[in-house]
């Protein structure tokens, strides 16, 4: 039994390949059905967005599963599997689980911390589970991953800070003006940086963009692109008084906006807050402007400073999310181990109850004169003996399973209580349990042999004591 992921994303594959592999919503149901009919793949979730296509699967055999999934993807893009392989990643167990959680919380995205991906993960999971393609393992896994993704969004500020200079300008503007809608921007210079910043500003909600350039035609071109208004160079000082935010990035050698010009504009706008962002080198705006009241002047170094601060902040937040993921992985492992031990406990309890009821039967035969009330009392007390005897073993089985993440103990305990594999299977609701663990090993082993084998295994794994142990499915 293995949990695995096969996929490609923006880091491993170019867009030509991603678009060929990607799976549209229309095809999804058919594909999920197709997977359901195979015996190789037991559970599957297909996550396909513009930046990634990933197949999360539970498979019986890792090699067959990997071959099957890689072939599926290479068939989709009509390439030989070997040609596709360099662009693929295949992860098993805990790294597959961690990968999914990173994806859900936006750590694996192009823009770290973006929130859209969480909805896409949720949809992928719901579609698969509606189609009946998931089982207990992936259900629990995706629930956990979506939970982690939500926590990352609500408990950290990852994804709320800018990491590029042009976007840092927008973030600064937001820190002064709040919502940018309804504010006016004047872009001085029509170069590459101006375009980039104007792009960010217009996607941040700014509707009125004025563009001034020494060559009027260039200003017109850029204005057309963003639905802005081109301003002739002579009207610069008028436009300055109208704008709330000024972005300047001309190639001029000297100052384009002197202190006198800016202070005139400040007066004309009745000292309302005025933000000037100078991304040109050499600088366009006279530095002494920053001394004016209600004027906020930033140059390229200041923006770099914002970016550095934001990157540090993101790093801190990403660490917090990583810790959340580690916890969630551990919880998932504990859940798996618990599931493993549940049938054993049920079987042990059933055996206890069976013994008690057979004792009651023989008692009834030997003492036929007992009244209903006396029988009731005896039943209660014998049941209590069974329960008290089993309480500690059951508790310890649970704890040992969680602490060691192992299935080995299940066999030892089953033998200890004289339970057969058949008994266990009767009490296990989930088909994945014991599929591997019990069948692979030879039958007909004595208890002594089993304990010896178990001890040897414990001796071989020194890690069992030192660090947290994961369930075998996740190793």
């Amino acid at each position, binding site marked *: 039994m293995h949990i695995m992921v096969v996929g490609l994303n923006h880091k491993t594959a170019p867009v030509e390949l991603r678009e060929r592999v990607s799976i549209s919503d229309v095809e999804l149901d058919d594909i999920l059905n197709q997977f359901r009919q195979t015996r190789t793949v037991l559970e599957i979730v297909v996550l396909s967005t513009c930046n990634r296509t990933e197949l999360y699967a539970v498979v019986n055999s890792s090699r067959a599963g990997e071959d099957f999934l890689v072939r599926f993807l290479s068939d989709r893009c009509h390439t030989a599997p070997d040609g596709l392989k360099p662009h693929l990643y295949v992860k098993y167990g805990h790294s597959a689980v961690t990968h999914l959680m990173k994806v859900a919380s936006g750590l694996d995205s192009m823009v770290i911390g973006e929130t859209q991906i969480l909805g896409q993960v949720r949809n992928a999971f719901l579609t698969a589970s509606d189609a009946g393609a998931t089982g207990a393992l992936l259900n629990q896994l995706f629930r956990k991953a979506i939970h982690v993704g939500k926590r990352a969004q609500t408990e950290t500020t990852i994804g709320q800070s800018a990491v590029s200079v042009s976007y840092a300008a927008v973030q600064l503007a937001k820190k002064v*003006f*709040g*919502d940018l809608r309804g504010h006016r921007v004047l872009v001085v210079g029509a170069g590459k940086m101006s375009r980039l910043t104007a792009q960010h500003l217009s996607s941040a909600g700014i509707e009125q963009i004025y563009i001034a350039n020494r060559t009027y035609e260039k200003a017109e071109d850029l204005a057309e692109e963003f639905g802005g208004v081109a301003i002739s160079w002579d009207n610069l000082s008028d436009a300055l008084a109208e704008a709330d935010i000024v972005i300047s990035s001309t190639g001029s050698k000297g100052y384009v906006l002197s202190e006198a010009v800016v202070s005139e504009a400040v007066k004309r706008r009745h*000292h309302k807050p005025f933000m000037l962002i100078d991304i040109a080198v050499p600088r366009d705006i006279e530095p002494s402007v920053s001394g004016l009241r209600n004027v906020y002047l930033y140059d390229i170094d*200041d923006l770099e400073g914002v970016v*550095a601060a934001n990157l540090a902040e993101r790093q801190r937040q990403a660490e917090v999310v990583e810790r959340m993921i580690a916890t969630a992985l551990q919880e998932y492992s504990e859940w798996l181990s618990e599931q493993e031990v549940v049938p054993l406990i049920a079987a042990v309890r059933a055996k206890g109850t069976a013994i008690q009821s057979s004792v009651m039967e023989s008692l009834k035969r030997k003492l036929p004169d007992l009244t209903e009330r006396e029988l009731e009392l005896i039943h209660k007390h014998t049941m209590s003996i069974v329960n008290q005897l089993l309480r500690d073993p059951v508790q310890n089985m649970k704890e040992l399973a969680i602490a060691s993440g192992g299935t080995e103990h299940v066999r030892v305990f089953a033998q200890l209580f004289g339970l057969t594999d058949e008994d266990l299977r009767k009490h296990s609701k989930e088909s994945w349990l014991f599929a591997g663990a019990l069948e692979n090993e030879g039958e007909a082993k004595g208890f002594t042999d089993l304990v010896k084998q178990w001890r040897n295994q414990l001796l071989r794994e020194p890690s069992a004591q030192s660090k947290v142990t994961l369930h075998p499915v996740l190793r």
Partner: protein
Amino acid sequence: MLSSRLVIDISVLCYAASLVLLFVDAIQPRRAVNRTALVLLFLVFVAETFVLLHRLQTSGAVPVYTSFDVMLLLSWLILLVAVVVNTFFRIDLVLFFANALGFAIVVFDAFAHVGRVVYTARQGDVLVLHITCAILSYAAFSFAFVFSIMYLVQDKFLREKRWNRMYLRLPSLERLDTYAFRSILVGFPFLLIAMILGAIWGKLTLGRFLFMDPKPLATTLLWMMYGVYLILRLRSGWGTSKLIWYNVICFTGVIVNFVVIGSFSLFHHTL
């Protein structure tokens, strides 16, 4: 009385601890720290509620007749509003700044011993309403002050280009200014109502309007100062830092009116 004294002392300690934690959280955000601070704040809130209810029970009247109660009620209101605002509107760091003020009031209240004066000539509902409205307006002005301080802090960061974590968490200047403006918009009519009710109360109990007393005079002046703020703010829009400073000055007026002027007044004693 002894038990409520003990409760107050403990709540002051809790309040101080919570404030320290909130400060740590403002500098180095940690969820655990933030949660602990919130729990402590809640304890303070419960304690203050307990004291207020206790005083309601023992005196048999709404606890607004001594300056001790009035200040307790004021800090209780600030705490309540801060927690509600923090929960529903997610204005980051408001909890820290508002409680710095609330804490100052509680400490002053608990240890300054100015407020043992009981108001004479109780006259039922009108007086209660008068005092309640005054407290509400003071609470609103307190929040205007808190937001103004947050504005000035954020403005300092923006001007000095200090991109620290507090800068990242503080809201934008425009938001802070709007919050301050709205707080005053709430406090302004309450203060007017309080003044009118006070005048009516004077007429009812003493048979004449009390205009020449220092307290009504100072309060009218204060009310006009806030009126000037509102006019300027409405005319020029948000964001002139001069107006924010003026707002801070208005609040010092509130404090002076609250603490100092009262001692010269015939009818307000320490308030």
